[in-house]
Every structure is written in C-alpha cells, then in structure tokens.
C-alpha cells in the first residue's frame, strides 16, 4: 500500500504568449502584412469620418414623434414619415376594420411553419403538409371574405408588406410540388414528358421575371376563356408560381443527382411502384439534400415580389412610392422610406437564413 504514490497532475501552463489575447487577434486579423495594415488603417479612417454623421442622422437628431411632416424639425431622419404610413406599408389599402383578417392569415402561416418545426415526422406528413397545401385557399377565402359571408374586400385594396409575404408563401406552396413534378418529368424516359418539362423549366428560368410579369398581365388573359376576367392578382400569382417552379425544378434536379443509385434499386427490389418509390423514398431524400438551395430560392422569390410594383400591384415598395408622392409629405423622405423597406426585407430574409441554418443543422444531426 504505502508504495503507491498519489498522482498529482503537473500544473497547467499558460498558453504561449503570442497565441492568445486581443493584441494577438488584432495582429493576426488586421495587421498581419503591410498591405493588411494599410487596408485596415484606410478603412478605419473612412469609417471614422462617415459613421458619426450616419449615426447622428439615423438616431441622434432623428425625429421620432408626431403625425405630420411638420413634426420633423430636426436635421436628422424623419421617422415620423414611416410611422404615419406604417399601416399602408404593411396592409396597403385594406380596410382598417378588417385588418384582423390579414393578421389572421399571416398568423396561420407563422403557426404552420412553427408547427412543422415542432412536431414529429408522422404528424408532419399527415396534418401539416395538407394544411400547408390548403393555406393559400384558406387565406384567399379569408382575405376576400365573400365566400365566408364577410364583407368582400376587392384585391385592388390588398397591399403592403403583408401582400409580399402572403403572395410569396402562396406561390412557394404551389410551386414546390409543381417544380418537383417538372423535375421528375425532366428525368422521365418518356420523350413527350421530358421535352415538355425541359421547355417549361428553361422558359421560366430563362426569361427575366419582369418580362414574365408583363406577359402575365398582358398575355395570360388570352389563355382564359372569352368573357371571363381573371383578377390581376391571380394572374400575378400564376406567374410567380411558374417562375418559382422553374427554379425549384432546377434545385430538385441537383438533389436527384445526389441520391445514390442503390436507393432506387433497393426500392425496386422491394416491389414498390414508381410513385411509391418516388414519394416515399426519393422525394424525402431529395428535399433533405436540396434544403439549402430550396431556402435560398425562397429568399430570392420573396425579394422578387417587389418587382410587382412595376405592374401596379400595391406591394410594399409601391406603397412606399405612393406615400412619397403624397402632397402632404413632399419634404423628400425617400431615404427614410427606402431604408425602412430595406430593413424590413433584410430582417425577414435574414430570419429565413437563420431558420435555414437551423434546419440544416437539425437535418444533419437527426438521422445520422
């Protein structure tokens, strides 16, 4: 017994001096070479000369309270402009008393997205996916109102940021399965299905989205039966769906290529039919590997909804322009207006990226 020695670990030594600490970080990241040093100093100088003015304009001498242009007495930004128009920015001309319907639609969207996060696979497949697919119909019914016995709100009045969000969501929800079918068609061995799919995909990806919007408002009516007039917003919706489906098909194509041949063979050898194999085995794996690109495409589509101002849809950017040309607000508030639009879009897009990163991490740890 007494021969045993007690084990005492040797004391930890501090890390070598030149590898830790803020001074080292600065040296490594900002001043590691003469060129870096020059760049750092130059950028630092520029920031120091510009930033104070910007901060002062944005915050310190900005005008925050009031309800008309006259409240903007300081030199800084006139945020009063934004707050006075905020209802239009978010809801367009939707009647004030009925705004709850817009809120309800947005809330349903948020709840379903959150739920698809929360619940496990079985519930997701049986309840949440059908709900997603029904969402555009439900939202339209609520916003329009006439089918539900509510006061009818014409689509001319829909607008603002909520329209950007709902239109993007409604397009994505339909474009997702449509894009998948196009991608399947493109891989098909049937020449007819394949050529049709290739033409559709390449057309809607190749033509600029603005041109598509113009075509949608001018040409789509030619395809509808004589005498029917299809709502402008519905036409825009169709264009967005087709445009998005083209991109999604391309995203899915990349996903298909990542699925090993063995997955098809295993499914075949079990005796699954083509559609069983596609839906049960291939689709989930394609979605999983394409997730980063799917979400990037969502962000792109969402930002592209601002192009709708060109054809007279009152989405957020066009509401902002209307506000800017209002006779009581001619004091030149373009900076405030566009900064606000940019911040709102950036916030939503950035959150989408965060969600995307999160989903990817979850997918990567889930089933490995």
């Amino acid at each position, binding site marked *: 017994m007494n021969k045993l020695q007690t084990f005492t670990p040797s004391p930890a030594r501090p890390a070598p001096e030149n590898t830790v600490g803020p001074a080292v970080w600065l040296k490594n990241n900002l001043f590691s070479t003469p060129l870096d040093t020059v760049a750092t100093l130059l950028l630092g100088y520029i920031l120091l000369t510009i930033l104070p003015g910007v901060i002062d304009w944005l915050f310190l001498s900005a005008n925050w309270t009031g309800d008309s242009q006259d409240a903007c007495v300081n030199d800084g930004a006139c945020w009063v402009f934004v707050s006075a128009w905020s209802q239009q920015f978010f809801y367009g001309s939707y009647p004030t008393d009925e705004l709850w319907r817009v809120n309800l639609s947005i809330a349903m969207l948020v709840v379903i997205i959150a739920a698809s996060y929360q619940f496990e696979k079985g519930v997701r497949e049986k309840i949440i996916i059908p709900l997603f697919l029904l969402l555009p119909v439900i939202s339209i019914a609520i916003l329009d109102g006439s089918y539900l016995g509510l006061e009818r709100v014409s689509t001319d009045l829909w607008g603002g940021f909520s329209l950007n969000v709902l239109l993007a969501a409604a397009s994505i929800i339909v474009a997702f399965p449509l894009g998948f079918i196009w991608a399947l068609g493109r891989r098909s061995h049937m020449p007819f299905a394949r050529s049709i799919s290739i033409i559709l995909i390449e057309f809607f990806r190749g033509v600029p989205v603005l041109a598509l919007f113009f075509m949608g408002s001018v040409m789509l009516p030619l395809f509808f039966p004589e005498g029917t007039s299809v709502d402008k917003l519905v036409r825009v919706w169709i264009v967005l769906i087709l445009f998005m489906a083209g991109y999604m098909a391309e995203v899915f194509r990349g996903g298909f290529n990542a699925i090993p041949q063995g997955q098809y063979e295993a499914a075949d*050898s079990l*005796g*699954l039919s083509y559609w069983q194999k596609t839906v049960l085995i291939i689709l989930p794996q394609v979605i999983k590997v394409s997730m980063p690109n799917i979400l990037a495409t969502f962000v792109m589509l969402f930002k592209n909804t601002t192009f709708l101002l060109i054809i007279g849809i009152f989405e957020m950017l066009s509401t902002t322009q209307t506000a800017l040309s209002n006779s009581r607000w001619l004091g030149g508030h373009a900076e405030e207006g566009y900064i606000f639009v940019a911040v709102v879009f950036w916030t939503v897009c950035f959150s989408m990226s965060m969600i995307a990163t999160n989903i990817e991490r979850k997918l990567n740890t889930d*089933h490995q």
Partner: protein
Amino acid sequence: MTNNPVNRLKTDEEIITISGLNKWYGDFHVLKDIDLTVKQGERIVICGPSGSGKSTLIRCINRLEEFQQGSLVVDGTELIEDVKNIETVRREVGMVFQHFNLFPHLSILENLTLGPIWVQKMPKAEAEAVAMKYLERVKIPDQANKYPGQLSGGQQQRVAIARSLCMSPKIMLFDEPTSALDPEMIKEVLDVMIELAEEGMTMLCVTHEMGFAKKVADRVIFMDAGEIVEQNTPHEFFDSPQVDRTQQFLQQILNH
C-alpha cells in the same frame, strides 16, 4: 402461414429457369448464353473475377437489369416487358446489396415495414410485428427505432437482410453482402445467412467467402467474361476444379 421459410423443404421443382440468356451494354457482351436452373431450396454461390458479370446475372433475376435475348422464368412467371409481371416477381425475390442500401431517412422499423405496408397492403401493426420478428432473428431488435446511419456496417447489413425477409420472399439474392464490411463484422452477417440457408431458403449468393460456400452451398458457379465456366458441388469445385481458369482464380483468392 405458408411463407415461413422453415416449412419450405427442398424439392425438385425448378424455381428459376434461365436459358440462352444474352445481354449487351451497347457493344459490350456482358452475359453470354447463360443457362441455369435453380431448384426450390437450393443454395448457389457464384464467384468469379471482377467484371465477369456476376452482379449483372443475379440482377436480371429481379429485373434490375434487362436482357436482350433468351428467357428467364421465376417461380412460374416469365420475365417479359410487362410492368405487372416485374412487380409480381420482385415481391417474391429479395435482394441484399453490397452497400446495404437502407433508406437513410427512415428508422430501422420503418425500413422493414415499408414493403409489407405499401406493397402487400398489410396493416401497420401486423407489419410491425413481422418486422420485430425478423429483427429478432438477425439479433438486433433493440435497434428498431434508430436510423441506419447510427448502426455499424454489420448491423446495417443484417437489417437489410431482415428488410428483404419481411416480404416473405421465395428467393433471396445476395450481391457480395460482406465485401463492404470490416473483417470483424463479416461473421455476424454470414451467421445470419447460414441460418437462413439451413431453414431452406432458395439462395443465390455472389460472394468470395469460400468458407461460406463450402459450408452451405449445394452448387458453386464460376463465371468469367460473361460465361458460366464451371459449376459443381463445393467439394468437387474446390478440390478438383476442371478448368484452368477456375484453378487460377481459386489460387488467387486462396493465396490472397
């Protein structure tokens, strides 16, 4: 249930009849005049150098590959270009692959119940009971709720075998089931296969595990350059191969 393999005894009934089968990949003649009959309950090991067409041959049996000439009858169904036909045959023929090919997005239990539920229209609870039965047979019932990526190679391959067995196949095809495994895992997979052979399953097995061949095979087939060069009982095959190419091949793998 009649589909319990234990009850299936060896008979003289031919379950697979291949005659005059030829297959080309473009200009490349990959299978040349293959004639092969397999009786119910027979265990066949196929070996041969890489590229000799072993995989291609057994993949023709469940029509993962098509062929251009000859005829192939599986359990009374002739394999012709008819979708119904193909699916009938695939239900009766299980296949185990070199790289397992489990479905990574499904749990082990879901991997096993997928076929019975969707192809055989079995109620979920029953399918799960069947799945658990086979998971116990391959000795990993405790992994039922894990995902394939969480299992070792040997465990994944045993799941893959169980997945095929859940469909109550009459024939099992194995394409080098142990060659992607680390040495210490080969035995656990071979044990399952030996047990299956002892229960009377009709098996066609591409493998270079000669110990396995000696132990369970009724017949060993040697293929080279798309042809069946030699076939014999394991005893004859290993002790007195008739053809030069077989001798060379056996020397190579035995010295290896």
